[in-house]
């Protein structure tokens, strides 16, 4: 097994620390728009990063093969590509593969080779379907067993683009102005070490879940040990990774609604619960009693996104900034209001969410589906 810890955490610290700027836009009507606005927004917060990491997640960018798993893989050596592709060929029938379109830019030095693969839903060699678990296993295998290869995006109809550099340079490098998506999330990173490793930038991704994160979680040690009980291996040693796994455990495996998962990560104080209704208190107390080890303590703001949904959440005493805004069908989340105003000067509503209060943007279509499901279940 290769030592991914060493790439991402060369000094073997407890965890990799970084501060950051975050920006997210979603058009809840599902209309796709180019990456220009998100780049403009995150660029306005240039000083929140230090050139050692920038990245983007874009949803709805591969409408022509929306049911295919899109793998974005970075290779440090030609051999890593050979090994990974050999592994792909034995496991899957690929629909297509091509190098990710990039642009040579002055500020991006020595990028790894980036290749994109599409795996169709019936593309498994030994099974008649490809599912999330199979994709997760594949990602884990490549990331932890093939030297020099790293899958940094593995969802359907979405893609992550990230690397070492300022976000605006990363965007230019990946030619994000040429993509159109209905939801964009961006991240500019200010790490306190200098790993210079492209995989360490945000967003952190597994399947179609992405997490961008600003903060240092002081409960990291126990969050990680709790997740390890449920079989997660925290090899990246970043706060972001535990947020991503916590959401995966709570939402995908334990089927909690995302707003309930938010209450696990940033729960109400015991005293606040005394003032809540019996039903609400019963739930909140049980959540904290059961998942107390997943409480994210210390300063953080995260944007967690997956297909059709984007959530902004800050820690319960609001130690890191988050501003939310809406304009018609657009929902914005940002570390700073100025970045939103730059993209969209006239807003319907701008607010600073309370600590621990999630801001959730959903595709209207998804909302309707949920409403239908609710009607069906009560009928």
């Amino acid at each position, binding site marked *: 097994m290769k030592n991914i810890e060493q790439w991402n955490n060369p000094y073997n610290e407890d965890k990799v620390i970084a501060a950051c700027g975050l920006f997210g836009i979603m058009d809840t009507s599902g209309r796709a728009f180019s990456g220009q606005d998100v780049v403009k927004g995150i660029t306005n917060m240039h000083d929140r990063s230090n050139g050692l990491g920038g990245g983007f997640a874009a949803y709805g960018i591969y409408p022509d093969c929306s049911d295919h798993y899109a793998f974005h893989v970075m290779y440090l050596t030609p051999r890593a590509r050979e090994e990974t592709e050999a592994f792909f060929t034995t496991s899957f029938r690929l629909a297509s593969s091509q190098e990710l379109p990039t642009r040579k830019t002055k500020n991006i030095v020595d990028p790894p080779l980036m290749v994109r693969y599409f795996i169709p839903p019936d593309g498994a060699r030994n099974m008649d379907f490809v599912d999330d678990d199979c994709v997760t296993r594949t990602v884990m295998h490549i990331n932890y067993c093939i030297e020099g290869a790293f899958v940094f995006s593995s969802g359907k109809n979405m893609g992550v683009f990230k690397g070492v550099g300022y976000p605006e340079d990363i965007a230019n490098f990946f030619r994000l102005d040429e993509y159109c998506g209905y939801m964009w999330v961006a991240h500019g990173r200010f790490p306190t070490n200098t790993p210079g490793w492209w995989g360490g930038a945000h967003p952190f991704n597994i399947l179609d879940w992405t997490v961008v994160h600003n903060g*240092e979680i*002081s*409960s990291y040690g126990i969050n990680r040990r709790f997740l390890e009980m449920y079989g997660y291996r925290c090899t990246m040693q970043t706060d972001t990774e535990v947020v991503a796994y916590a959401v995966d455990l709570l939402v995908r495996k*334990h089927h909690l609604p995302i707003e309930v998962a938010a209450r696990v990560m940033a729960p109400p104080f015991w005293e606040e619960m005394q003032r809540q209704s019996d039903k609400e208190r019963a*739930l909140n107390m*049980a959540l904290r009693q059961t998942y107390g080890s997943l409480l994210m303590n210390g*300063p953080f703001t995260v944007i967690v996104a997956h297909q059709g949904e984007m959530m902004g959440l800050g820690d319960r005493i609001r130690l890191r900034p988050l501003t939310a805004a809406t304009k018609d069908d657009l929902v914005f989340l940002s570390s700073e209001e100025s970045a939103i105003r730059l993209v969209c000067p006239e807003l319907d509503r701008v607010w600073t969410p309370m600590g621990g209060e999630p801001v959730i943007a959903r595709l209207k279509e998804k909302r309707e589906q949920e409403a239908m499901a609710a009607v069906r279940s009560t009928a």
Partner: protein
Amino acid sequence: MSQCSFKVHAYDEHDDRVCSASENCVGCHRCATFCPTGAISIRHNPLEYRNNEYWKAEAIEDIIKQAETGGMLLTGMGNDKPYPIYWDHLVLNASQVTNPSIDPLREPMELRTFLGAKPDMLQVDPQAVELKTLLAPQVPIEVPVLFSALSYGAVSLNVHESLARAASETGTLFNTGEGGLHRKLYKYGPNTIVQVASGRFGVHPEYLDVGRVIEIKIGQGAKPGIGGHLPGEKVSADVAATRMIPKGTDALSPAPHHDIYSIEDLAQLIYALKEATNYTKPVSVKIAAVHNSAAIASGIARAGADIIALDGLRGSTGAAPKVIRDNVGIPIELALASVDTRLRQEGIRNRVSLVAAGGIRSSSDVVKAIALGADAVYIATAALVALGCRVCQQCHTGKCAWGICTTDPILSKRVNPDIGTRRLVNLLRAWSLEIKDMLGGMGINALESLRGNRLHLRGVGLTDTELAVLGVRMAGD
């Protein structure tokens, strides 16, 4: 003069002076504390044997005593030998720059902890956003410090009352020990852990009903592997009634529970107690920390216990054979770390709360224990020190000059339950403030974010193996 229950001071009428038999002095400081003129000072008697690094005074004197009596040597309090104290080799973290420390004077800081089994996952109705899972009974404590088992009979009723009232005022729990609960204290039931030990002294349905938590005592850190011994002299009428034994008889609890010869027998007792109380109370199992505690703890969790109490090498006692106290068991720091790690490796840490006991001296020991993986800690010696104890190790004599570890009606009046309660409440308040300060420094505002969070600990002066068992990194690493 009358303060000394060990007969050090006497008045010589002939010479009209007070004389002292200093060889009787146990160093309890009662006389020095109460001397109105401050005339008494107590110093170590310099009478020494010929210097010998191997045959030290203690070894020689123990042999002399045994040659005289032909009996086991008894002692009180916890192990006083110079084994490593791991607490003192662990240092805590604090936030600087990248993460703001939290000021407990200005921000909320939460110490509330719930003892009891937690499920592996919750089911929530997604539409109604309503809880569907029924949780096992959860007992809240406002400070992660419980008063450990001190049985009525070993300690006086005034001590029991002080502990019960302080637990009740502070929002924590006190433990009856194996001697039952005096009816006068039933009103503190919601803050009481009722113990069921191998002698079953004082165990009856009402006793189980009145407690908040039931604890099965398998072992005790001061004397792993052996039962309790309350000498008949301490069994007064009240003690006898509470223990349900004849007055003046020795209360000897057997070494094992004679209905528990194996783990499945323990499961039966756990469920018998749960049935008897209609599944309304968590059941705790207390064991002494021994070599294979991790495997035992895993078995206990699987046997259905809601709480595991681990009592380490330094755990205290009212009376124990000296050889056992000083040589049997392992340090709580190591046992706690290995039990927490094992339960996590097996994915069952959520099923039990873990309470660490045995030698917790300060709020920093509490914080370190929680970072190693404890949900809460038990204190006994520290609580008694708050009541006046000076750790003179004479508990087994029944002559405690501070009136704590005695049932002598005159001596036990020396503990006033009003003052005792206040001092214990003060101690827990002071520790809470200190714990909050340490948490805030680490950038944490809820105790559950420290629990098992060993990244906030670093080791100094420990070997690689010690660090590995503790699951802690070397300072500077």
